């Protein structure tokens, strides 16, 4: 017998959203994850944010697994997370790491919480009596908390802890705690764990206005707050409970609010020559929300240097903020804030439109503070014995944002790459998990062997009979107004009830034993448990049920005490017992009519289809092939390489796309696992996750072949935009950036012969007609070309006419380098575009000097146009073939721009690269890795488990109106034209019930939530007379 291989284990350090995402991905692939966080909470910065653009809602739960839902929690992630394969260790520091790739020993310092969450009954009386008050970190110090506290107000369970630094050991809390959950002498513990791979997801330190010198002239009053503090002022769980925004100093509503961008960032003197990437969108969103909360009369102004709206949908959000919400944007670096005697905040600024100085008073000033990355990177480098690059950041491999150079098995994701928005945090988390998966596969470790507790089939073929177990909660709250005797008597009379049990504390070991006994002995076939916090131990109880031979869907738990704790007593009489009786009765009804539910398995064809043979497509294909997955790689052209891999020699950040593509092509053709289909297009794809069939049309043979595969990755790319503006086409001296790049590389354009070069940015981009979006790569492209010219010919004069330089993140250094090299940057606005006249065959560029406000004329030897990135026209055909949608701009539309950036709405379809939106090569590679990982999650096994609760179709009742198909947010329903009926993709269905609501005659139904059940529940709730008083 072969020796059992160890189970692959990965440590994810940091439980912010990218760490959580990486952990979930690994857990879904079957690996064991240890997820730690220094702080006592999960969720990182995002736990503090109620709102994310573009929806201005939360959406964190969208990162939960869609398939295999039974193994993870399925509720608000801001409350908590659960997954069978993830061990979550908040308040745990990594103190030392030894060993090497594939064999790390990690010392974990588990800091003492001083309160045992297993014993604490969360009544919170200790919070009331604690006399110590300190600033609450969760609200950025805007409010106070006790020394004994709950780190996140919406956490469930509450997970109280004691701040040891603040605690005075007065012992008041001990006096009120009835469960002896508090131990003031609890000590930190060190535990050594062995892991195969490590993912760093700690995020970075944020700029602190108290700490840094350059904030002194701004942070002059409590009414000057950071953007994160402002977020807490907006939040429903924050300082004002979601009410109108007021000034911290005097509580007056804030009517004039200003944002100052780049606080702490883009500051060369302070050695912070980087942009923090996310602050522009953060400020725009906050300004829109401030308007929505306070009404349109609230004045919101953002003072900025460049409004960096580079990502997908960013520019459109900016346009909406300005045009629809009236957010004002002023391009000016404000030098400081003056506190006037009346408390208002005065700022002096130069209006670039009029070139005049203005002085204006504000009620509230928000500083858009960014990242302080070097400390965090240094700490990890020391701990991991990993190299730092010349900038002082963890050195990553040139073609990967997540692989740490020279350290196999060590990866990073999230804001360690530079502050990232939600979408990039997700993508990098998935990609890091993908890299770890590849590493673990190569290492030869195993995935978790599923512990099979088989779901028992039909219990007994008999009429429903419910056993009710009521918890007394250790007599503590149970005696306050809840008459167990009356309640038991009442329930005993209720039709369908077989037995009533009152148990002292169901959550305690004794209680558990009592329940298991009941399950073992009962003559009933259904069990209803009335206790508290149902989802905390639902899983444990359901397992006990299975062991006792019960189908776990026959056990329901409901929150008996929540009724009283939320003040939900009987409205007419204030009677808790009466109310409880109603609640129990309605739950009995639900359980009585509930069918036994089973998880089903779907077979998986462990083959992938990758569409697009560019760098992104090849990367995704190779990534899967490396893990042993067979891949069909389809390319519509006669050769691989795509746009970048055939047209672009090198990029500003030192990548060489053509060389990279050449190398990849070799590997693709050498791979046993990849079948390349050149000159082919996919015409139609049918099927669902695990079993797709695609009709492939080959242009060479004019024949169709049919491919069978389990998932699809679309990486169909994009291309440089075309233009007729600025005299393009009239002369060889007017050309696009790509043409210039090619010319410079081939030597067709001799840089030493040019004197004046003018580049115009945003040609046809970021405007209402044409491309509405920012093409993200043109600013870096222009800088790259300009630097090449300058290197060859330092005397050449290069002018770049721009609207906003989109050198976000660490790309800022190239902008700095370009300015140092003498490249001249001139700003122009959309309503005053440069004019080009051809004089003797040469372009002359006329534009307004932004500083002097004078018309300038520049005769140019070369006029270079940044014409942006256009989506492929074939996207339309692709969208139709796969039943996916496009954005208004013609790019492929992902399921959710923030939380599911590389997935389509339909499970099993993924996208990567510029088919998603314009992006630099490194981001393409990152997305390709992430898409491959998403695909691998399902391809790694022969089957996937669906959830027990999914929707279904009662075909005899169905009228085929297809309203359910249109309304399903997960693309789980479709109309089968061959069978002429509605079909449900059980893997994609999330049981949200939208179809059941939409369907008028009950043909669409969610298992376990039938109309019959629900009407019985409503009936029971409406009964207002105790049976004991009418019959008997």
């Amino acid at each position, binding site marked *: 017998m072969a020796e059992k291989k160890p189970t692959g284990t990965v440590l994810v350090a940091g439980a912010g959203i990218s760490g959580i995402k990486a952990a979930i991905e690994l857990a879904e692939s079957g690996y064991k994850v240890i997820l730690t966080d220094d702080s006592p909470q999960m969720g990182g910065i995002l736990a503090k944010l109620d709102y994310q653009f573009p929806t201005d809602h939360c959406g964190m739960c969208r990162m939960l697994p869609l398939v295999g839902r039974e193994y993870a929690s399925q509720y608000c992630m801001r409350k908590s997370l659960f997954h069978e394969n993830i061990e979550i260790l908040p308040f745990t520091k990594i103190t030392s790491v030894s060993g090497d790739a594939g064999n790390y020993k990690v010392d974990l310092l588990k800091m003492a919480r001083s309160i045992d969450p297993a014993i604490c009954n969360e009544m919170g009386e200790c919070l009331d009596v604690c006399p110590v008050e300190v600033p609450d970190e969760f609200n950025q110090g805007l409010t106070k908390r006790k020394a004994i506290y709950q780190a996140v107000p919406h956490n469930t369970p509450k997970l109280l802890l004691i701040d040891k630094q603040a605690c005075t050991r007065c012992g008041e809390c001990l006096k009120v705690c009835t469960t002896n959950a508090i131990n003031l002498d609890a000590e930190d513990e060190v535990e050594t764990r062995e892991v195969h791979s490590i993912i760093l997801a700690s995020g970075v330190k944020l700029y602190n206005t108290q700490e840094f010198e350059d904030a002194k002239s701004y942070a002059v009053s409590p009414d000057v707050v950071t953007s994160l503090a402002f977020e807490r002022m907006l939040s429903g769980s924050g300082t004002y409970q979601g009410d109108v925004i007021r000034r911290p100093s005097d509580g007056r509503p804030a009517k004039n609010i200003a944002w100052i961008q780049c606080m702490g960032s883009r500051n060369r003197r302070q050695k912070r020559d980087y942009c923090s990437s996310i602050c522009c969108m953060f400020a725009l969103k906050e300004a829109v929300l401030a308007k929505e909360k306070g009404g349109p009369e609230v004045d919101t102004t953002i003072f900025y240097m460049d409004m960096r709206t580079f990502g997908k949908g960013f520019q459109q959000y900016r346009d909406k903020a300005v045009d629809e919400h009236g957010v004002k944007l002023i391009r000016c670096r404000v030098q400081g804030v003056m506190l006037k005697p009346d408390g208002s905040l005065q700022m002096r600024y130069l209006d670039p439109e009029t070139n005049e100085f203005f002085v204006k008073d504000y009620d509230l000033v928000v500083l858009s503070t960014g990242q302080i990355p070097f400390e965090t990177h240094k700490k990890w480098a020391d701990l991991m014995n990993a190299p730092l690059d010349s900038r002082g950041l963890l050195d990553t491999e040139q073609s990967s944002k997540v692989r740490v150079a020279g350290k196999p098995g060590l990866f990073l994701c999230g804001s360690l790459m530079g502050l990232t928005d939600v979408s990039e945090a997700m993508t990098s988390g998935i990609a890091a998990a993908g890299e770890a998966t590849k590493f673990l596969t190569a290492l030869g470790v195993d995935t978790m062997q599923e512990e099979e507790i088989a779901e028992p089939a039909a219990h007994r073929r008999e009429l429903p009979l419910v056993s009710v177990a009521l918890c007394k909660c250790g007599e503590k709250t149970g005696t306050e107004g809840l008459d167990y005797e009356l309640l038991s008597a009442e329930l005993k009379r209720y039709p369908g009830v077989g037995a009533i049990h009152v148990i002292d504390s169901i959550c305690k070991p004794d209680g558990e034993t009592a329940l298991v006994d009941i399950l073992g002995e009962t003559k009933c076939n259904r069990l209803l448990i009335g206790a508290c916090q149902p989802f905390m131990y639902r899983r444990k109880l359901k397992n006990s049920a299975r062991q006792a031979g019960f189908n776990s869907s026959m056990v329901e738990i409901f929150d008996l005490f929540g009724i009283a704790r939320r003040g939900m007593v009987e409205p007419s009489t204030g009677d808790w017992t009466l109310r409880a009786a109603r609640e129990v009765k309605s739950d009995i009804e639900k359980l009585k009519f509930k069918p036994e539910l089973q998880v089903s398995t779907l077979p998986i064809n462990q083959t992938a289809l990758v569409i697009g043979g560019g760098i992104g497509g090849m990367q995704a294909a190779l990534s899967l092939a490396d893990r042993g997955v067979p891949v069909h790689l389809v390319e519509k052209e006669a050769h691989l390489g795509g746009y970048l891999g055939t047209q672009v020699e090198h990029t500003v950040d030192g990548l060489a796309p053509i060389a990279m593509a050449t190398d990849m092509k070799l590997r693709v053709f050498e791979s046993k696992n990849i079948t390349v289909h050149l000159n082919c297009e996919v015409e139609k794809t049918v099927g669902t996750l695990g079993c797709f069939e695609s009709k492939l049309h080959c242009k060479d043979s004019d024949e169709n072949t049919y491919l069978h595969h389990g998932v699809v990755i679309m990486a169909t790319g994009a291309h440089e935009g075309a233009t007729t503006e600025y005299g393009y086409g009239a002369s060889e001296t007017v050309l696009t950036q790509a043409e210039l790049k090619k010319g410079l590389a081939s030597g067709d354009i001799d840089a030493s012969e040019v004197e004046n070069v003018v580049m115009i940015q945003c040609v046809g981009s970021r405007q209402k007609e044409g491309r509405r979006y920012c093409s993200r790569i043109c600013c870096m492209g222009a800088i790259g070309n300009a630097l090449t010219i300058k290197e060859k010919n330092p005397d050449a004069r290069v002018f770049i006419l721009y609207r906003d330089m989109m050198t976000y993140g660490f790309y800022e250094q190239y902008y700095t380098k370009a300015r140092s090299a003498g490249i001249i940057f001139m700003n122009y606005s959309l309503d005053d575009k440069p004019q080009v006249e051809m004089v003797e065959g040469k372009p002359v560029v006329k534009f307004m000097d932004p500083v002097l406000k004078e018309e300038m004329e520049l005769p140019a030897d070369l006029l270079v146009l940044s014409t942006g990135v256009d989506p492929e026209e074939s996207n339309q055909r692709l969208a139709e073939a796969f039943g996916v949608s496009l954005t208004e701009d013609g790019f492929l539309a992902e399921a959710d721009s923030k939380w599911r950036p590389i997935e389509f709405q339909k499970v099993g379809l993924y996208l990567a690269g510029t088919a998603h939106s314009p992006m630099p090569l490194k981001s393409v590679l990152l997305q390709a890795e992430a898409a491959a990982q998403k695909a691998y999650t399902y391809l790694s096994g022969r089957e996937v488990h669906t959830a027990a609760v999914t929707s279904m179709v009662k075909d005899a009742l169905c*009228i*085929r*109106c*297809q309203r359910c198909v*249109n*309304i399903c947010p997960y693309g789980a329903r479709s109309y089968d034209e061959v069978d002429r009926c509605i079909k449900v993709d059980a893997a994609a269905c999330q049981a949200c019930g939208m179809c059941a609501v939409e369907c008028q*005659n009950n043909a669409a139904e969610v298992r376990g939530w039938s109309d019959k059940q629900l009407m019985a529940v409503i*009936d029971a709730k409406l*009964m207002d007379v105790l049976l004991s008083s009418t019959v008997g």
Partner: protein
Amino acid sequence: MAKFAKLSFKKDELNKELAAFSKRMLENSAVDAVLVPMAQTKKGVRLTLVTSADHTAQVDPFAPIAAVSGAKIASSLTSRPSGRKVAMVLRPCEIRAVVELAKLKQVNLDDVLLIGMDCLGRYENTDFAKFQEQGGTSESFLENAQAGKTSMSDFDIIGSCKICEFPTADNVDMRLCAIGAGNGAVFIEAITEKGEQALEKSGLKAGAAPAGRDEAVKKLVAVRTEARDKKFAEFRADTSSFEALADKLAACVNCYNCRVACPVCYCKECVFITDTFRHTGEQFMMWADQNGRLKMPNDTLFFHLTRLTHMSLFCVGCGQCTSACPNGIDLMPLFRTCADKTQARFNYQAGRSVDEEQPMAGFKSDELVEVTGQVK
């Protein structure tokens, strides 16, 4: 621009001319079939599917009767399409129901030439028999009704027609125009390109528009709108409480005929006759226990309220529910008053346009905020 062709007829020969028109449409392959009201062998007029040019003689589209809603027939003919072109001559209310059913994918308009006839009202089926016995014809009805006289000895056109503000059809390819056409003539109006091609194939020449038509339609709509508003006010006052509503429905025997007759109640099988509503004896007893008594059959009010929730957004006010009730309950005003409010809430009008999305057919996060209470 619409084209009009005048169809003059001698006394008692209106249907002869319309039959000739239908015959030419079939002969010249403008369509492969015509669905048109036609006199039956002995008595009555019913929609009839004609595929042979030799069988058009009995057509009688203006007969003031609609025994079964034509929209239901249109659904039967096209929801699983034949692939053959069919002209459907229907009343405005039937056309509006067809529009709703098309959106619900119960009607497929791909191969349909929709012809809407002017409607001055219809009689109940039993009354139509009397109308014929008393010598009434489509010609006499058109003439009298245009003069404002629809009542006969002891009966009149049905209540829903009296308050119908849509005497002419929209969303059609052609119209059969009687209102304001003058004596001895009706007009055939081609509206869409499809309609014009059909008109050309029918061999009729386009000419002047009927001079008095617009004015006559306007006048009629004004009269009916006034009657509608009066009816709404009366009915609302009459049903201001659950008890009052229950009284209105007192004669109901839960036969569900109203829902069978309703053209937009499109379910194959009503939820009320499925297992969901097949209660146990134990359940009935518990309900009875609540108040010490339970009216049987139960769920009467529930049924009608459910139908109101399901259908009022699509209700076209055809009055088939009232016609179908074996116990004489006038359900039409209940549906129309309710539809008046629900459709207005969504700025929707059943049958107005095929392209308008039906309300509640999609999930909109910013819809009905006052009901959902959703706040940011």
